């Protein structure tokens, strides 16, 4: 990219922004004035706005390892120039002499090939005509924090978006750390987009509050709408789903992943029946999180008339008795999410039918679900195991012995999610068979601090020795050793995501009694591609020194109950240039640590600190020095404003300024 950026601006006459009256808006940033002055197209480094500008070039991808849907080839977030959108749009209607048609046409045609958001962001910074051309041609809009930019601004700049990814609440909201009603409502976005993006096709929302009314607007505003993905959202019911089903005639995917659908049990609307009759273009239907019964006949009929369906994940109102019938109607399925993997009372024994169904589904590569597993049904999946790339048994309470015949057949497995009820021995079996494993997640059956540990360092070492291609791991355990973590760092050098959750807080290495510093240090040192890290156990500032020293590619860091002093936080903020998302809870980092990151916060998407030693004073200082940061102090209850102890800090860069929809328990500094 660096080679081309100067070309377009060599001839000052080509600078279309000659008429100063257009650009000298009183809010115009130094960068725009410079562009207009025909000297350098690049704004001076000293301008704080330029920091924000380049900073927002940063991370665009929305993966936190959790959603397979969000790894769209998406672009970065909107640019922080003061009013470029307004300026640009005011020129669009002007007569031809103000546009160099040839250049713009060429540019637009070339830019169409740029899909990566980073490249697009870089291109848009070159000069005004590149900025405009890029804005006109961007099709996929990624907004990693819905409060970083206002809907009007985003829509004003990008005029022909077909695909939107929008993320709302910070991840710690999943763990009850943010009271209900905090924000991230989809309503203002859909209200703004409905009239402006007639060709919108895809929407992916994560941790947003989506109302049924929003879904109705969505369903009725975009004739080409085809893909809706909702991840960890809340606020809607089956009525909203019915609106989608009924009105989106081009619907290809309806993927509802881990949402909080607010119907009371069994009180839902029969949304499945709302799909239009006749052949549909449905390709993916995921609704395991919907907690109401569905019309089983309607579902079967829908599946039968959706010949393009390759992914179906049903909820636990579907038992095996219905499952094999659905599978029979969709033999082309590649991704199957079973409902309850048992038969309901009085239904009968479907083992034979189920096994036949799995034998017939030759295309299956991914199986999940397995709720309420009845062990006698597990053998039904044996015929499909050899082809499996992905297997999610994390809702299945199975023992080592029950896992064995399954896992020993899964030679091609690349993704495996499981409960720790399979014990270290189960993990040893995984290590012995799944040589191509890329992603492993081991969840705790008993998610409490003082439960007996089921998996341990033994399992971790076994995995590291058997699955050398491992790229991503999430491992819950009660205790761990440095040696095991070091072993993993040496064996699995391709690790990109390393999330170790030692559930007992402040637990040291259980063999040596030492802190877990060396283990995590080895991970950041040896795994050169590491971008995401979650630490736990007893950790001193030394661990953070290691992270700051070696974690040069780390983008997401999760810290809980760790560190000794502000030094720990300083090491990370000073040492990790790529750090985008930092979430910290219950660690002794205070204002000094907080202020040590002033130079970097504009490069980050957000910082979360809860139950640390940060004070309101420190936060106010940050707000004072970084005018484009929104600093939120979130309280669990409406307490005395002057209380010294501060509960939660959530801060993020934003072009929109402090939001106007903050609830009473959020104070914006």
């Amino acid at each position, binding site marked *: 990219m660096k080679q081309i950026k100067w070309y377009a601006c060599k001839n000052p006459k080509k600078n279309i922004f000659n008429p100063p009256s257009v650009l000298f808006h009183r809010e115009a940033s130094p960068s725009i004035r410079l562009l207009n002055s025909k000297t350098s197209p690049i704004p001076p480094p000293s301008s704080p706005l330029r920091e924000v500008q380049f900073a927002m070039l940063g991370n665009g991808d929305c993966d936190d390892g959790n959603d397979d849907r969000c790894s769209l080839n998406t672009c970065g977030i909107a640019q922080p120039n003061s009013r470029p959108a307004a300026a640009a749009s005011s020129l669009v209607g002007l007569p031809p002499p103000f546009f160099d048609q040839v250049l713009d046409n060429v540019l637009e045609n070339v830019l169409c090939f740029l899909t990566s958001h980073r490249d697009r962001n870089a291109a848009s910074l070159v000069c005004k005509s590149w900025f405009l051309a890029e804005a006109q041609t961007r099709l996929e809009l990624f907004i990693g924090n819905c409060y970083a930019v206002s809907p009007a601004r985003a829509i004003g700049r990008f005029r022909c978006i077909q695909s939107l990814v929008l993320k709302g609440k910070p991840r710690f909201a999943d763990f009850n750390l943010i009271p209900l009603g905090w924000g991230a409502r989809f309503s203002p976005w859909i209200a703004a987009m409905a009239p402006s993006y007639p060709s919108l096709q895809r929407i992916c929302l994560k941790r947003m509050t989506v109302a049924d009314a929003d879904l109705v607007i969505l369903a009725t505003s975009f004739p080409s709408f085809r893909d809706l993905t909702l991840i960890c959202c809340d606020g809607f019911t089956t009525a909203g789903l019915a609106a989608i089903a009924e009105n989106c005639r081009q619907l290809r995917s309806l993927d509802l992943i881990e949402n909080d659908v607010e119907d009371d049990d069994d009180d839902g609307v029969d949304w499945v029946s709302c799909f239009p009759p006749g052949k549909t273009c449905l390709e993916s239907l995921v609704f395991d999180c919907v907690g109401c019964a569905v019309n089983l006949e309607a579902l079967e009929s829908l599946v039968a008339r959706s010949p393009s369906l390759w992914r179906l994940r049903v909820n636990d109102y579907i038992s095996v008795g219905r499952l094999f019938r659905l599978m029979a109607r969709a033999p082309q399925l590649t991704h199957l999410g079973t409902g309850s993997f048992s038969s309901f009372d009085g239904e009968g024994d479907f083992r034979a039918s189920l096994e036949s169904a799995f034998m017939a589904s030759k295309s299956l590569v991914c199986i999940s679900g397995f709720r309420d597993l009845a062990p006698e049904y597990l053998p039904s999946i044996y015929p499909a195991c050899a082809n499996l790339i992905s297997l999610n048994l994390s*809702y299945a309470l199975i023992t080592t012995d029950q896992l064995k015949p399954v896992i020993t057949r899964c030679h091609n497995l690349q993704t495996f999610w499981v409960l720790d009820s399979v014990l270290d021995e189960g993990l040893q079996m995984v290590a012995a068979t799944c040589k191509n494993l890329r992603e492993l997640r081991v969840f705790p059956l008993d998610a409490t601090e*003082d439960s007996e540990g089921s998996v341990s360092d033994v399992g971790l070492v076994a995995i590291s020795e058997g699955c050398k291609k491992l790229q991503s791991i999430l491992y819950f355990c009660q205790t761990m050793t440095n040696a095991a973590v070091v072993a993993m760092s040496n064996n699995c050098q391709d690790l990109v995501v390393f999330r170790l959750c030692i559930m007992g807080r402040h637990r040291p290495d259980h063999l040596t009694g030492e802190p877990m510093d060396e283990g995590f240090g080895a991970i950041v040192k040896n795994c050169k591609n590491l971008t995401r890290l979650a630490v736990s156990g007893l950790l001193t500032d030394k661990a953070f020194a290691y992270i700051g020293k070696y974690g040069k590619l780390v983008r997401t860091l999760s810290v809980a109950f760790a560190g000794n002093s502000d030094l720990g936080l300083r090491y990370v903020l000073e040492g990790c240039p790529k750090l985008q998302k930092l979430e910290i809870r219950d660690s002794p980092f205070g204002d000094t640590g907080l202020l040590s990151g002033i130079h970097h916060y504009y490069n980050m998407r957000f910082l979360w600190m809860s139950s640390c030693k940060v004070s309101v004073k420190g936060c106010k200082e940050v707000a004072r020095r970084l005018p484009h940061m929104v600093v939120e102090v979130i309280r669990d209850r409406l307490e005395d404003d002057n209380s010294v102890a501060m509960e939660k800090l959530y801060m993020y860069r934003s072009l929109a300024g402090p939001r106007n929809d903050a609830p009473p328990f959020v104070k914006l500094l």
Partner: protein
Amino acid sequence: MIIDTENLRATELRLGLPGADEEAPDRPARGCKRLMTETGSEESGSRIEVLEDDRGPEATVSSKAQVVGWPPIRANRKNVFPGRKAEAEAAGGGGGIYVKVSMDGAPYLRKIDLKLYKSYELLREALEDMFKCFTSGDFSSVTLGGGGSNYAVAYEDKDGDWMLVGDVPWRMFISSCKRLRIMRGSDAKGLSPKFLN
């Protein structure tokens, strides 16, 4: 404060891996902290600082003394295996232990959840804060224990006997305590002076 919490912990029987548990001294319970900040005084502010250990204040949830949001598992996953939870609750893990607290001379009773407090000291402070408004005269007279105190706290155990608070390990106490009574020091003669001193 009289209770030697360090030694007390050493004598406590616990299930846990050897060398595994190096947990910090008990954190202030959420209820305690809230009461203290409501007084708004500088002293309570600093008292919070003293009570907090390096790990910062936490919100505690009553059952099993778990911390909010830890371990980081989403609710939809946590709720999937209710069998486990039911076992835990049967073992006394779930729900709070609510006992009535009466104070001599006070017009009405209070009820507290003993599970919110991890030690006698925290309980003492909570009671002090709760009942200081009922004492005539200066608040400093309401010190439960320590020199110059003129109140004592007693509890009624499972057998119906009234015992002075502070003699038995904390966990044994909360499992046998049925109600609490804050009595004037003069009435506490004859009971063990341990809690008072």
